[in-house]
């Protein structure tokens, strides 16, 4: 079910401000693609255009094409809500629904969309998703407890379980480990490696070691100056980016000469 995403000539705006300019990239299925770059370069903004979350912000819009397995996500007949069901997202800060229990959080995608399901099927889905997120063993005895009672790392895995419970094709992760301690980070990275067997994963990270550890391909975003649009400077296999990048700017960034 993992799918391939092709982005061509993508310009991203906030109102009249051009935030990201001219992105062309192909994201391979069943792999992890990492996006790195300095703060404010537009990598998170780019990520959010992949499942049409960008346009939730008033005035935000895009030009260009994002095609998933031959389907234009920004086509005239594309419904952003359907797009988001196929492309899940995990956010920087864990954000379980505070009014719901652990069980309800995982089932949220189904419940909130009023999809009718037999109780036993739902139970199975919740267990499968929690196992998929490596959280089942830790929470199986307290599924009816509020999700906000878990630790930060557990909450983030709960959010991943919630995202995969909708059975998306692609999983977007926006700095999923930046609010977590090293142990929890390791748990999430292990999880990502498992998940890539079934999903296309795109992750934004500030942590270059993380990008090097988990990803197959890496894209480097940069901007020339304040007020200038961000650009995708280089997109290559991770190994190449970290050993022998094509661009000078990439080398400067990953060797810590700026950013």
């Amino acid at each position: 079910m993992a799918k391939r995403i092709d982005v061509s000539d993508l310009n991203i705006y906030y109102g009249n401000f051009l935030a990201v300019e001219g992105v062309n990239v192909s994201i391979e299925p069943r792999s992890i693609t990492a996006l790195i770059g300095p703060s404010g370069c537009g990598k998170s903004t780019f990520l959010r255009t992949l499942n049409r979350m960008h346009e939730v912000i008033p005035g935000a819009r895009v030009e260009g094409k994002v095609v998933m397995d031959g389907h234009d996500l920004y086509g005239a007949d594309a419904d952003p809500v359907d797009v988001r069901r196929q492309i899940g997202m995990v956010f920087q800060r864990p954000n379980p629904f505070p009014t719901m229990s652990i069980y309800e959080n995982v089932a949220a995608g189904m419940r909130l969309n009023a999809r009718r399901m037999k109780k036993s099927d739902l139970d199975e889905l919740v267990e499968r998703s929690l196992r998929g997120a490596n959280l089942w063993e830790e929470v199986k005895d307290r599924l009816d407890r509020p999700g906000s009672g878990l630790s930060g790392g557990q909450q983030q895995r709960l959010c991943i379980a919630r995202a995969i419970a909708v059975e998306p094709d692609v999983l977007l992760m926006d700095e999923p480990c930046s609010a977590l301690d090293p142990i929890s980070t390791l748990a999430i990275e292990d999880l990502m490696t498992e998940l890539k067997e079934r999903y296309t994963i795109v992750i934004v990270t500030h942590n270059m070691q993380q990008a090097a550890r988990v990803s197959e391909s890496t894209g480097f975003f940069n901007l020339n100056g304040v007020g200038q649009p961000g650009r995708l400077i280089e997109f290559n296999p991770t190994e190449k980016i970290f050993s022998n990048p094509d661009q000078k700017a990439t080398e400067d960034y990953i060797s810590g000469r700026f950013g």
Partner: protein
Amino acid sequence: MTATRTPSPPGPTRPVRRLGDRVFAGSARGAGILILVILAGVAAFLVAEAVPAITAPAEEIPGGEGLTAYIAPLVFGTLLAALIALVVATPLAVAIALFITHFAPRRLAQGLGYLVDLLAAIPSIVYGFWGISWLAPKMVPFYRWLEDNLGFIPFFAGPTSATGRTMLTAGLVLAIMILPIISAISREVFLQVPTLHKEAALALGATRWEMIKMAVIPYGKSGIIGGSMLGLGRALGETLAVTLVLSVSGGITFNLISSGNPATIAANIALQFPESTGIAVNTLIASGLALFVITLVVNMLARWIVNRRADFSGAN
């Protein structure tokens, strides 16, 4: 939801919207517009029902001298009572707000604030009951003293009302009622004073009062003004407390402690409306329209002042 407003190059289209979203967004928007319609309706229906009184010949209006002559003393009474309330309540409310924000022990402050807010929860009619039976009689000796010692001021010329149900008593009851409004808004702005400003003043060696004078009051000034205007708006329209407390005789007088007092618009409506028919009802509605316009102007002014301040301070 995020239809692009600016004309954009070909490519981006209006996002597809689901039926549920359209219905829900539409009804939310409808509710918002309904509020504007209601407000317009209030004005329109009042005008419609006031027109017969405005166009009627003068001798048909109660009192027999026309609409203006009927409403003028009422407007005077309304303004007088509200003004007394404002003059009494504003300094008191600001002092209370200062007490709660800067003088009271930290742990007690919130509870004390809640006590002041309780004053706002008491229904108008209960204030009226209390005004008649507790405050008015207790004011009589004080009014006597005013008459004896300050009688040369027209306000206190007397003769003192035996019941104490005077314009001054009504103004005091109103003052108590608007006290929590003014003090709540003042409190809010005093709490928003940047700590930096206050610490800067203290670092210069200011005492607490000097710090308040230097940092808190200037910062909160427009909040205080806006708050008092809101209080004024409330006092202008307050009905039952005045209806009960004020002993009405009509006419225009500045004498605050005698038994002859002009009514307020609101109190007059409450007193006359249940027994009125025909053109008298239209006359009362016309006076209500006048009250509506007065409070509308005061409130819009107040909101403008408060909001301008909010924009300026970057709060919200």
